[in-house]
């Protein structure tokens, strides 16, 4: 049964180069240790040619001209190892994480799939390069032989079953990783290669070196048999990047985010997965005041001041209401309706709207903490309606989001995590109804929400209340809407006037639509002295409801003033009383009227107020003397005020 081994030589350096590919062409070294004992622990060939050596102190290394030094980062190594695991899992479901820089794969049954072990090994090497790692790949008949060959030979090595001993024989004994004592013993004997160790008699070897010696000899022959310890791969996709200098501009930050997203999406696609949630966590630079607790001068950031300043202004905590939205009192004197969802939420200003506007899209944010010990954190999550793994689209969404909600300080560390999800399968067809592409739609909505407000774009959802005109704007997902839904709600009576049912075949008339005035326009109403205006004679005779007659006497509109003009009421229908939520502070109690109002054509010029009244057009036409329209007027019974809710159009 064949096995493959992927080994990343000089893993610590490669983990750093994976995040900064530009360093591959430069002499580079990695430092580690607590000051003042910081030493060089890894270097590349170019750095070695300049005289850098492992174990050099930092001050010694800094004297070398042109050398790039980086601090060791455990996050980078963790991410690199995770990438290696994803790479291995993209080929075989059974892998063993032998070391942080070594993965062994079980290749049983994969030869036909990949066209042979040679091709498989080459593909492994190429894909490792796409993940930013230069790996050595070897294929052997057992895990130990494959591992030994991967660690010992550069490039791609395929060991045939009968030549393992011969090929491994050229490797030094040190490659077997013997103990110090055994190594010295073998050195004294003059055994320096695996071949030399392999030809020693077994019995005498075991007498002198014990079982450890026998084990080493089996390794040297490539005959060691052991079972693979399979790894249960964790479904964690996280990439991190620690920055040497703080980033305060959007462009370089986008570049770094793009790199992280490329890595994440590459790892997801290697496991045939996508993501529907991406979390971004950025550590921000602390000011001197925060570090030292003194009123020091503020550290000047580099350019891109506008973007960061907006973020600093937005870091002031907001005071969201119970529904998570900022409330603004209605204009024109309407009573403030707390809790109604149909009040228009304001578009985001440059100062941002805190966490309120983000909740509509499932985004969470934390106000940067200013504790003495912990650095300020900027944390956001981007939830997508559908699983995606297009790094460019995701970067665009993040850019739009960061433009609207910039961090308060420069960034020193970035961590990005993706929640894995199954790939969405969509099959198009000739007769499938038209619908927008989900990735494009997401970007379009994010761009549009950037200037109208994220809470002002979406699908209208009616609320479960009798309050007039109550709705909220929810997430627009045409794919969900196209799935058949059970209409248990009110849609059974909302088939509309225009639905052509078999019983109401004549009901093909369109429904009369109402254009709503938001906010409602205040109006003045002159009531009709004679209450029976608009009623038939028979109704008048049969009417014994004195209370209603009394009400009609008081409230039947005769003339209405709004938009700067008085209009005569030609016909009236009402009042239609509606009330509710009396058990809450936000109750309503209204009388609604449908009025046909006739306006004279004004002699004055057109003004903005005319745009919502019927004579806005009549003002243009000299031939029409009057203009009519049917309006819905509302009277608040608690305050007695009148408003124009809308016009039938």
């Amino acid at each position: 049964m064949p096995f493959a081994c992927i080994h990343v030589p000089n893993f610590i350096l490669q983990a750093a180069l994976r995040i900064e590919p530009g360093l591959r062409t430069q002499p580079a070294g990695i430092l580690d240790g607590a000051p003042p004992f910081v030493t060089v622990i890894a270097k590349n060939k170019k750095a070695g040619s300049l005289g850098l050596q492992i174990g050099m102190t930092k001050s010694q290394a800094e004297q070398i001209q042109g050398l790039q030094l980086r601090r060791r980062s455990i996050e980078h190594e963790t991410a690199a190892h995770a990438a290696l695991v994803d790479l291995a899992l993209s080929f075989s479901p059974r892998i063993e994480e032998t070391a942080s820089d070594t993965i062994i794969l079980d290749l049983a049954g994969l030869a036909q799939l990949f066209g042979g072990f040679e091709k498989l090994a080459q593909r492994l090497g190429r894909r490792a390069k796409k993940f930013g790692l230069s790996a050595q790949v070897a294929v052997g008949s057992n895990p130990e032989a494959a591992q030994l060959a991967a660690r010992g030979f550069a490039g791609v090595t395929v060991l045939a079953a009968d030549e393992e001993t011969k090929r491994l024989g050229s490797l030094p004994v040190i490659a077997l990783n013997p103990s110090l004592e055994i190594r010295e013993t073998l050195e004294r004997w003059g055994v320096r290669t695996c071949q030399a160790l392999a030809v020693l008699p077994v019995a005498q070897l075991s007498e002198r070196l014990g079982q450890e010696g026998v084990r080493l000899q089996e390794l040297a022959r490539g005959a060691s048999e052991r079972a693979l310890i399979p790894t249960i791969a964790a479904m964690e996709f996280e990439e991190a990047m620690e920055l040497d200098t703080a980033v305060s501009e959007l462009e370089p930050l986008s570049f770094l985010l793009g790199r992280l997203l490329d890595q994440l999406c590459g790892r997801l696609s290697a496991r045939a997965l996508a993501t529907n949630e991406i979390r971004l966590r950025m550590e921000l630079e602390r000011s001197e005041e925060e570090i030292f607790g003194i009123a020091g001068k503020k550290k000047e950031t580099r350019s891109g001041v506008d973007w960061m300043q907006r973020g600093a202004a937005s870091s002031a905590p907001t005071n969201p209401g119970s529904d998570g939205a900022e409330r603004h009192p209605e204009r024109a004197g309407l009573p403030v309706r707390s809790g109604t969802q149909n009040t228009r939420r304001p578009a985001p200003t440059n100062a941002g709207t805190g966490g309120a506007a983000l909740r509509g899209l499932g985004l969470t944010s934390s106000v940067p903490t200013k504790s003495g010990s912990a650095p300020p954190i900027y944390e956001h999550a981007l939830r997508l309606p559908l699983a995606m793994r297009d790094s460019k689209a995701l970067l665009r969404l993040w850019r739009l989001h960061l433009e609207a909600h910039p961090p308060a300080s420069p960034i020193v560390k970035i961590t990005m995590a993706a929640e894995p999800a199954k790939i969405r399968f969509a099959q198009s067809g000739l007769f499938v109804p038209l619908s927008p592409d989900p990735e494009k739609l997401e970007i379009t909505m994010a761009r549009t929400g950037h200037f109208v407000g994220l809470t002002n774009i979406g699908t209208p959802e009616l609320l479960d209340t009798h309050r007039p005109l109550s709705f909220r704007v929810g997430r627009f997902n045409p794919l969900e809407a196209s799935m058949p839904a059970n209409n248990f709600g009110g849609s059974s009576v909302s088939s509309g006037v225009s639905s052509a049912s078999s019983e109401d075949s004549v009901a093909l008339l369109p429904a009369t639509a109402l254009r709503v005035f938001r906010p409602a326009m205040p109006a003045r109403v002159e009531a009709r002295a004679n209450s029976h205006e608009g009623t038939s004679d028979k109704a008048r005779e049969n009417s014994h409801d004195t209370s209603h007659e009394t009400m009609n006497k008081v409230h039947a509109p005769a003339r209405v003033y709004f938009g700067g003009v008085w209009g005569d009421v030609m016909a009236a229908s009402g009042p239609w009383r509606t009330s509710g939520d009396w058990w809450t502070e936000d109750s309503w109690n209204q009388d609604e009227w449908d009025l046909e109002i006739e306006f004279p054509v004004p002699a004055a010029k057109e003004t903005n107020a005319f745009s919502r009244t019927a004579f806005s057009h009549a003002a243009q036409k000299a031939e029409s003397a009057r203009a009519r329209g049917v309006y819905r007027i509302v009277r608040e019974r608690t305050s007695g005020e009148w408003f124009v809710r809308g016009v039938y159009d």
Partner: protein
Amino acid sequence: MQGNPALTRPGCRERIRVRRRKSENKNRFFLFFFAPVIPVKTSALRAQLEKSLGSRFPAPFSPRPPAPAEMVASGIPEIDHLTGGLPRGCLTEISGPVGSGRTSLLISLLSALTKRGESCALVDGRDSFDPCGAEEAGVALGRLLLVRCTNIEQALRAADLLLHGGGFGLVALDLSDLPIASVRRVPLNVWFRFRRMVENTPTVFMLLEQESCAKTCASLVLRLEMKMARWRSIHKSGSDGNSQPTLLSGLQFNAEVMRCRFERAKSDDGWAGGSASRNSAASDFAAVASYEGARCSFESKPAWTELTKKRRKNSEA
């Protein structure tokens, strides 16, 4: 020439004359032989190519005629009969004063398209959309993308992004409640850009405003106005003591075709693109009287009239 001593020498003028005569003759000779040859060669070449490619490419040098527009039923039989429906891939303008029926037409079209499973987008210039009424009228709100704007700049930008994204069966830009002056100030190239963006796409782009402003960019311009409101008396008093003797029973509107500049697809087996043919009124393309100046009237009814009928039927049942 008079003051030039070189030209006043004897025989000089004669030499100039001869030289001039020679150059003229040369030009005449050139024009005689080559000038008629150039257009003759081009036309012969063109004729030869058309002859050899005619079997494979009919009229290869002639501009291709514009593809006929696919029509979609608006849901109002009178409008469909007047115009044949609304064209896809074109800019349609619906203008008229407040209360002229534009919103009813829009809601009817939204209902028709969302019921067919198409996604629609509505850019509301002044946030005047009534979702409750739309839902009662049959609009599937889950397939409607609503953009609530406050000014014309936001509305135009949103419409631009939505048209650019594509994939919608209808993109409606409602500028009805915005001041007319601000709508008039929109330059023509904006409408031209919108028209180009929607060309060759299956999207109906509908523009609602108080007066027509897209001019030649619109392929179909309909002018609506309110004809009359109909009221009816009811004699029953409600159980809660509210007696409403008068009820709005409907509005009547007039519609006029101000401009019609598109080629409609002909219906042979009733499948003209699949959308309008399902409406029995719209499938009769041959009878459409869609010329500029054509008029029709249509009526709309408030949704509660049908609700009342249904409730009565349910109680009787």
